[in-house]
């Protein structure tokens, strides 16, 4: 594992994987969209609006998953001062923010025809909204200092403090009786969904994950170049 802790070596591997990740994303996306829009049946209650699920659930999953990545990277920034973890956290946060927005927006578009309202202050929605605010705070804190490197550790502490929100998001639908439907994917007794819907959903989730990986590599390249620019500026100025 520590072989890849060296940022340069890690980037070499990431660059080699990049074409495969991109191709994988496109293939999975095509397969997932075919399944979501054409092959999957309508829901007997929700009709065609159930097709929004194939966007909504993967974005929700990605929003939470990226926050998990952020928290794990933050922990290793604080404990081991890991430079690569810092770069991954920096590169991931805006992507997580976008998928939180997408999750909220598609949820809204699904809620209007099904519940008759764009928004409801129930526990699930409120906790995802807090996730959105946490991402905003994280990014703001990261960029709030004159020295760009100075923001990593405060932001890492904030990310770890915000982890308490993740179980609240997961269990909000079980703890409170709310408008949002209970979990149908991650349950102890297996997914409560016909295979014809489950299969495209899982494909779409994989496609979204590959999208994150693909963008992560690009953003890491950008962060790497930015870090090298900073050191060059410092050494250049002192020469």
């Amino acid at each position, binding site marked *: 594992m520590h072989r890849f802790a060296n940022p340069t070596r890690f980037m070499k591997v990431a660059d080699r994987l990049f074409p495969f990740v991109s191709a994988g994303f496109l293939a999975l996306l095509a397969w997932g969209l075919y399944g979501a829009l054409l092959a999957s049946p309508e829901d007997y209650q929700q009709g065609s609006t159930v097709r929004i699920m194939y966007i909504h659930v993967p974005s929700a999953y990605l929003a939470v998953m990226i926050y998990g990545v952020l928290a794990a990277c933050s922990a290793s920034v604080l404990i081991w001062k890991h430079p690569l973890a810092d770069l991954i956290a920096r590169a991931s946060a805006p992507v997580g923010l976008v998928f939180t927005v997408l999750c909220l927006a598609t949820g809204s578009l699904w809620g209007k025809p099904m519940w008759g309202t764009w928004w409801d202050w129930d526990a699930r929605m*409120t906790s995802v909204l807090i996730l959105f605010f946490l991402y905003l705070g994280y990014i*703001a804190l990261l960029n709030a200092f004159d020295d760009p490197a100075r923001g990593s550790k405060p932001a890492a*502490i904030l990310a770890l403090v915000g982890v308490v929100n993740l179980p609240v998001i997961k269990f909000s639908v079980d703890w409170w009786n709310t408008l949002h439907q209970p979990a149908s994917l991650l349950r102890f007794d297996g997914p409560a969904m016909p295979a014809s819907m489950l299969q495209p959903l899982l494909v779409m989730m994989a496609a979204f994950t590959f999208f994150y990986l693909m963008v992560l590599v690009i953003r890491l390249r950008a962060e790497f170049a930015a870090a090298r620019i900073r050191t060059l500026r410092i050494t250049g100025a002192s020469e």
Partner: protein
Amino acid sequence: MAAFFSLIRRDLQLALRQSADLAMVLAFFVIAASLFPLAVGPDKVVLGRIAAGVVWVLALLSVMMSLDRLFHNDYQDGALELIVLGPQPLILVVLGKVLAYWLSTGLPLLILAPVIAMMLNLEEAAYLPLMTGLLLGTPVLALIGAVGAALSLGARRAGLLMALLVLPLYMPVLIFGVTAIEAATTGFNWQPHMLYLGAILAAALPLAPWAAASAIRQALD
């Protein structure tokens, strides 16, 4: 332990000497509360419905407004560095400062809260849950606020940044505080909600000073 109490005494004395600050926070609390009857109209039923929520939100904002007093002054004049280098464990120092902060800000707000609630025509059944909730909740607000204040030390636009960091973390406290009142006014048992608030306080009491202490340490690096 003596050092712990002398730190609290020092912070309280500082707060008393700058009592204009405290007066301003309390004035904000009252003035902002009086905006609501003007905004939604003087209808007693409507005001009674929103009274508890208004008191809670304003208490939350008032606690947040003076957070910069907590570490920022000591950070700028270098006192914080001396405190950190001292023999006291930093977590205890943070805890002491938060306690002093709560005594000088949270407690006056707590005393003022029933007056505001009365002006807003809060139901009688709601006073006890409101005050119990604030008693358990304002220390949590101060503790979480300490984390935000420590994180934004040395940042650009620290005050605005602090609001962005702290307000989302305040939401659970607000939710439990207000649902207790909702339960009390609709004839349900409100005490379980207080247990939640107590649990949050019990969790924040060790965790928040720990996070704030590590944030202060890296700010002084």
